[in-house]
């Protein structure tokens, strides 16, 4: 692969993942016990990329602080998109950092090195101005649908409202240097510059290769999807720690009490502590510096960094943001449950609760199944938490 530069689009918040995106963009949400974006960078570096340009915007400090000046010894340059005016506009911000051809990927979906290589190989072999990865999906509703003619893209439709499409744009592109000019010439729709609009114009004018790939491709559309993402990541063993036991990964800088039970798949990040009598797993990811107290039971749950689950708690099907502190005897009973997001109701979701950053619960708190709890919520002892709690609220008994 001779294209060595990759642009990663990581500037957008990912509003459908609220309330977890209060303090960081979707690419920094956990896929098991590390950020989605870290998996994306792994795929790029494994594919042979030697220069990374991250387009950052919303809460960019969090991306910059986490990755710093390089990732796995590949230098990172940060390009800033101050206002999120579409994916084409985001790519334009990287223009000064790019000479020649480049790979472009979305920073908020798990991809595989093989898919990146496939796109670049097709781009180079067929000598086209653009190539993009295409995958088959049962539902294309939230994505760009594509129609292939032979090996080329024939049609690209952003978020179609019919079910007649089967293939979607996987968000892995290779472009030659002319892409920037092409974006310049694309007219804005509702003030935004979408990359797919530019690609649609390229499809009309020139050739755009569509590269069918079957590699790993996982996207979280809603907060509770992070549970499925974690399951997928753990099932494939994409965990940086050494496997100590069947599908159990414990960081060397974590402490697991001799009387705690880890039922794989379970990943425990650095600096974490698991107390005596705790039963953790299956399908649990504990982020860095997490704490699970004595005799707590945690199943099918994602605990992000710096989160505490105190003694005697029971968590099933829960997604916890960062620095969430749950007191002794907390109960999240697990799904299925109906989840309300604005005016929409998602029925029968396997969700116990989504609890956003820095929410604290005193002792003996229970959650309504399917609860969505905002950030910085203060839950008093003995309270029952209803299905929807706005950020900063107080929940009393």
């Amino acid at each position, binding site marked *: 692969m001779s294209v060595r530069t990759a642009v990663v689009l990581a500037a957008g918040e990912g509003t459908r993942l609220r309330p977890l995106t209060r303090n960081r963009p979707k690419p920094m949400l956990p896929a098991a016990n590390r950020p989605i974006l870290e998996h994306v960078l792994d795929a790029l570096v494994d594919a042979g990329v030697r220069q990374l340009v991250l387009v*950052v915007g919303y809460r960019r*400090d969090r991306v910059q602080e986490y990755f710093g000046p*390089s990732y796995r010894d590949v230098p990172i340059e940060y390009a800033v998109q101050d206002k999120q005016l579409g994916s084409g506009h985001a790519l334009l911000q990287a223009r000064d950092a790019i000479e020649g051809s480049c790979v472009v990927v979305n920073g908020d979906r798990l991809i595989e090195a093989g898919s990146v290589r496939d796109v670049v190989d097709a781009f180079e072999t067929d000598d086209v101005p653009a190539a993009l990865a295409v995958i088959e999906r049962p539902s294309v509703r939230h994505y760009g649908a594509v129609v292939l003619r032979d090996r080329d893209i024939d049609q690209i439709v952003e978020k179609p409202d019919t079910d007649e499409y089967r293939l979607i744009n996987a968000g892995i592109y290779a472009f030659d240097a002319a892409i920037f000019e092409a974006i310049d010439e694309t007219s804005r729709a509702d003030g935004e510059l979408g990359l797919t609009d530019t690609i649609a114009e390229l499809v009309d004018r020139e050739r755009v290769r569509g590269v069918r790939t079957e590699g790993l491709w996982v996207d979280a559309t809603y907060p509770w999807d992070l549970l499925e993402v974690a399951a997928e990541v753990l099932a494939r063993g994409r965990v940086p720690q050494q496997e100590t036991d069947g599908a159990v990964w414990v960081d060397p*800088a974590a*402490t697991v*009490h001799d009387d705690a039970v880890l039922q794989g798949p379970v990943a425990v990040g*650095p600096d974490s502590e698991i107390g005596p009598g705790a039963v953790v797993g299956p399908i649990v990811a504990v982020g860095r510096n997490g704490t699970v107290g004595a005799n707590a039971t945690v199943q099918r749950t994602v605990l992000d960094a710096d989160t505490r689950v105190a003694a005697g708690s029971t968590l099933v099907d829960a997604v916890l943001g*960062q620095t969430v502190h749950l007191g002794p005897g907390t109960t999240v009973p697990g799904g299925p449950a109906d989840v309300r997001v604005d005016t929409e109701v998602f029925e029968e979701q396997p969700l116990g609760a989504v609890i956003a950053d820095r929410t604290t619960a005193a002792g003996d708190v229970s959650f309504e199944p399917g609860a969505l709890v905002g950030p910085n919520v203060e839950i008093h002892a003995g309270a029952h938490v209803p299905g929807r709690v706005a950020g900063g609220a107080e929940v009393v008994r």
Partner: protein
Amino acid sequence: MCGIIGCVGRGDDTLSTLVAGLSQLEYRGYDSAGVALGGETLSVAKRAGELAELRAALDDEPIEGALGIGHTRWSTHGPPTDANAHPHVDCSGRVAVVHNGIIENYQAVRDELVGAGHEFVSDTDTEVLPHLIEAELDDGADPEAAFRAAIDRVEGSYAVAAVVAGAEAIFAARNDSPLVLGIADDATYLASDVPAFREHTARVVYVDDGEVVRLDADGWTVTDADGAPVEKTVDAVDWDPEETGKSGYDHYMLKEIHEQPRALRQCLRGRVDELRGQVDLGDLGDLSPTGVQFVAAGTSYHAAMYGAMLYRSAGVPAQAFLASEYATSPPPIGDALVIGVSQSGETADTLAALREASHRDARTLAVTNTVGSTAEREADHVFHIRAGPEIGVAATKTFASQLAALNLLRLATAPGGDAREVVTALRDLPGDVQALLDDSTAQAVAEAFTDASAYFFIGRGYHYPVALEGALKMKEISYKHAEGFAAGELKHGPLALVTEDTPVFAVVTGDDDLSTKTVGNVKEVEARDAPVVAVTDGQSEVGRYADHVLELPETHPTAASVLANVQLQLVSYYVARALGRSIDKPRNLAKSVTVE
């Protein structure tokens, strides 16, 4: 992490090119540095300490050559002595090697070479390479073949570059450590990272694992392990060398402020056990001092004051002294443990104070960020704060790590009291600092007061050193007048300075006698029409008397000081930025002060 560099074709500028390149790699480490220049003969210069030490040595005794290699080091194991600094040479002085990475089978190779009569002078894994090359040269191999044979013998990760006397070329190879070539019309470069040569060229070639590089007057070639030429693409980079390393931040200082959660994690890693409410620092736990004297200077002195309070709270008599005063007018030491706090471990005043203490047979301990520094070598014991390299002259993350480390030290050597609560608060600290950084309004507050005629900072107890540090930071980078006071001391004189043009930053946390008293002091200030900025967790009523509030997460009193300091760092940074100051390199100041 270390950095390597090499260049061919710079003629008389070779040495200056290498040294300038190393300064761009300082973010990869700076505890020892060296260069080797080649040609008919080799000359090597290397020094423990920052690049300035090497520069000084080269000023005294310049070396020459038409090509050369260089190295900057950040030790994680083993001390950075002159002997352990790179480049490493063979017995005959014909071969010099710089290396970034770890050679895993070095012990076996070294034993074999020692058996064959080779003499080793360092503790490093790297030193096997020049001796391996030497052995091959002795067997009649040409320099390139000798280099290849040596690389074949080692396992592990490496980006390595070598020069051989008489060969007008640099040989390099890579496995799992970064190596990039820089291609200019009349010169060729290699380095761990592009900034090392970015001022000379933007054309680069990324070397891949298993490839061998030769740079000479004719240019560059890349071959595979079998010697077959590899076709490489020349890529163009288009970034500003000043910006790389700053990770998208405008200044190293801001980057380092934002790195504090990470620095604190490293400081605490493997040392705290919340399940047992304990701290484990190995042998240091046996120190059990009956008295403590801290010696330190500048920001570290503020950390030392805080450390002394921690010990006193645990019932151990403790005092903090300015190192320069202690060295020349030492107090009676008795059987106190003397603890020197120094980020660099090279602070001349602190070293002098520690020497004075040793001279009087006191036990000494160095608390430092720099593995193998002079303070570490000279003190009886050492405790590393593990904040990672700090580039900005104004100390930020190292102060936070010093405070966390001193809590660990207190808990390990004088356990008891509120140990369990403190351990929990320390483990919460990275997340709490992150919460503060995510929501801080310090920029707006700073910009409201950029025209102030002076800045005052007040605090009580653990917040008193923080008030002093807040003022020092403001002086260092904004060049404005600033003073920190014990809150109760304000009315004994300094209150005369307070006017409507002098904002007063009051650090008040919790809701106890201390905070009630500080709130009283805030009222005195408010009555004189001075603007008040409360740095608070909101538990007391200080917010009622404040014009602005900088919020802190609620935590244990000792951890609250760390948090309050982060807000004050941000205020100083944004004041200095609004005033257009040279934030990372303020006038008249140096990162580590190695003169008394």
